C-alpha cells in the first residue's frame, strides 16, 4: 500500500493515485482521518492504517502534498469542532509520518506536513547564502515570491533525478537548494532571460500530470510500472 496524502482539491494527486491503483497506490485526504482506522503506538513509534476494509498495516511509502490540515478540509465535521479537529489531525499526521520507517516524500517537520515549510524569504536566504542569484521580490515585504516570468525554467529534483533542467549548471543549483531544504522532491523555477539563472519560485508539490515528473516520483515511492 502506497499512500498519497493530499487535499480533496488536488486533482493531479487524485489522478496520479487513480492511475496507479492497480499497483496499490491510494489517495488519502484529511477527511479520511475520520473514515479510516489509523493508529500510532509509541514508544518507539509504529504507524498503521486500515484502508479498503483490510487489516491495519504500515504503508510501503507515502507521498505528502499538504502543509497542514485546515478547517475547510473537514466539511463533514460540525463547524464549531473543525478548528480543534484540524489542529489535532495535523499533530497526529505529523507524528504518524515521522514514525514511519519507509520512504516518506517529503518527510514532515515540526511546522509542515511536507518538508521544512519555508516561506519565500527562507528560500531567498538559503539561495543567497549559497551564492545563487534570486529574482528580487516586490517591495511589499509580505513574503510573496517575485512574479513568475512568462518564460521560466521549471526544474524538478526527485531524489537523484533531475527533470526539466536545460543545462548542468541549473541542475546543480536545483540539487543544492533541494539539499539545503532537506527535500527529496521539489520543483524550482529559474529565469531564462539572463546568465546566471535567478531563482523565482519553489514548491515541494511538483506537477504530477507531467509524465517525466510522475515517473520520477514513481521511482521515489518504488511504484512498480507496468
Amino acid at each position, binding site marked *: 500500500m502506497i499512500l498519497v496524502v493530499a487535499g480533496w482539491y488536488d486533482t493531479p494527486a487524485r489522478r496520479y493515485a487513480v492511475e496507479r491503483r492497480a499497483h496499490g497506490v491510494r489517495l488519502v485526504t484529511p477527511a479520511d*482521518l*475520520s473514515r*479510516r*482506522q*489509523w*493508529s*500510532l*503506538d*509509541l*514508544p*518507539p*513509534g509504529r504507524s498503521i492504517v*486500515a484502508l479498503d476494509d483490510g487489516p*491495519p498495516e504500515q504503508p510501503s511509502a507515502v507521498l505528502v502534498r499538504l502543509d497542514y490540515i485546515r478547517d475547510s478540509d473537514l466539511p463533514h*465535521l460540525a463547524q464549531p*469542532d473543525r478548528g*480543534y*479537529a484540524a*489542529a*489535532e*489531525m*495535523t*499533530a*497526529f499526521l*505529523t*507524528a*504518524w509520518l*515521522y*514514525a514511519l520507517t519507509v520512504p516518506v516524500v517529503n518527510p514532515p*517537520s*515540526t*511546522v509542515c506536513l511536507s518538508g*521544512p515549510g519555508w*516561506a519565500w*524569504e*527562507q528560500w*531567498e*536566504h538559503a539561495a*543567497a547564502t549559497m551564492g545563487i542569484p*534570486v529574482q*528580487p521580490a516586490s517591495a511589499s*515585504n*509580505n*513574503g510573496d515570491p517575485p512574479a513568475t516570468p512568462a518564460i521560466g525554467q521549471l526544474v524538478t529534483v526527485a531524489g537523484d533525478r533531475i527533470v526539466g533542467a536545460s543545462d548542468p549548471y541549473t541542475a546543480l543549483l536545483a540539487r543544492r537548494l533541494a539539499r539545503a531544504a532537506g527535500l527529496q522532491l521539489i520543483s524550482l523555477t529559474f529565469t531564462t532571460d539572463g546568465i546566471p539563472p535567478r531563482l523565482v519560485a519553489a514548491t515541494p508539490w511538483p506537477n504530477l500530470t507531467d509524465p517525466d515528473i510522475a515517473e520520477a516520483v514513481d521511482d521515489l515511492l518504488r511504484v512498480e510500472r507496468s
Partner: protein
Amino acid sequence: MILVWGSLQDPPVALVVDELAKLGAPVILAEPHEFLHVELQTHKGVAGFLSTPRASVDLDRITAAYLRPNGSVAGPDQRGREMTDRNLLLWAELTSAFIINHPSSMAGNNTKPLQAMQLHRIGFAVPATLVTTDPDRVRQFWRQHGQVVYKSISGTRSIVRRLTPADEDRLADVRWCPTQFQQYVPGVEYRVHVVGSELFTCRIECAADDYRYATDHQRPTLSEASLPDSINERSRLASRHLGLPLVGLDLRRTPDGDWYCLEANPSPAFSYYEGHIGQPIAAAIARLLTHGDISR
C-alpha cells in the same frame, strides 16, 4: 541589544525584563498589543529594522532575543499586525542572534507524540501511548494498562483526564478524530527548567491528575528538589536535542524509582515555580541572553 517580544502583563516576560535591567543590558521591548513595525530583507544576509512606539533598532544590532508573544493581538490594522508577527518570527528563524527559543524548535510542542518520540530517542522513558481512530484498539490499550489518561495531541491546551467506565459510551467518537491515550504513570511530579546549562528542579505533590487544574482541596505543594545525575544529564541533552535553550520538562518519578518524561514545554511559565519557591530562573535567562552559551 536584547529584544524581548512579549507583554509586561505576562509574569515571565516582566521577570526577565527586570533581571536584564539589573544587569544593565540594553533592551528593546516589543509588546504584542503595541504598534510594531518590522522590515525584513533576506536577499543579502538578514537585515532590516524593528520599530516600537519607544524605539527603533536595526535588526543586525540585536544580539539575543526572548520570544514569548503568546499569539497575535486582535485590533486595528489586523493584516499589518499579522505581517509584523510573521516577519519577526522569520527573523528569529534566520538570524545568527541567540534566540530563546527558535520558532521552529518551539513548534515541536504542537505535536506531542512526535515530541515524545524525540524524548524517547535520547533516553527518556515516556508513557506507553496510543493515538487512534479505532475504538477497539482503545479498549485493548485500556485493558492492557489498567489506568489510562487522555489529552490533546496538538499544542491546544487540554486538561489531562483519567479514562473511566463512564467514558465507555463516548469511545465510539474517536472515529471522528484521532485521540491520544496514555498509560497512567503514578508517582510524584517534577518540573525541571533547563536554562542553558543550568537546571532548576521543583517537586510537585498533588492528588490531581493534572496539577495545573487542581481544585482547592487538592492544592499542589511545591518544593526545591534535586535529580539523579543521569536525569540531570538527560535533561540537558533534551534541551540541546530539541534546540530549546530554555525548556520546562515535566518528569514523574514512580514509586519504583523509575523516571518518566511526560512533556517538554518550549515556552514555560516559569514564574509560577519561581514565585512559589524562589528559584532564580529569570536571572539565569537574563544571563543566558547577555552571554549565550548554546549555539544551534
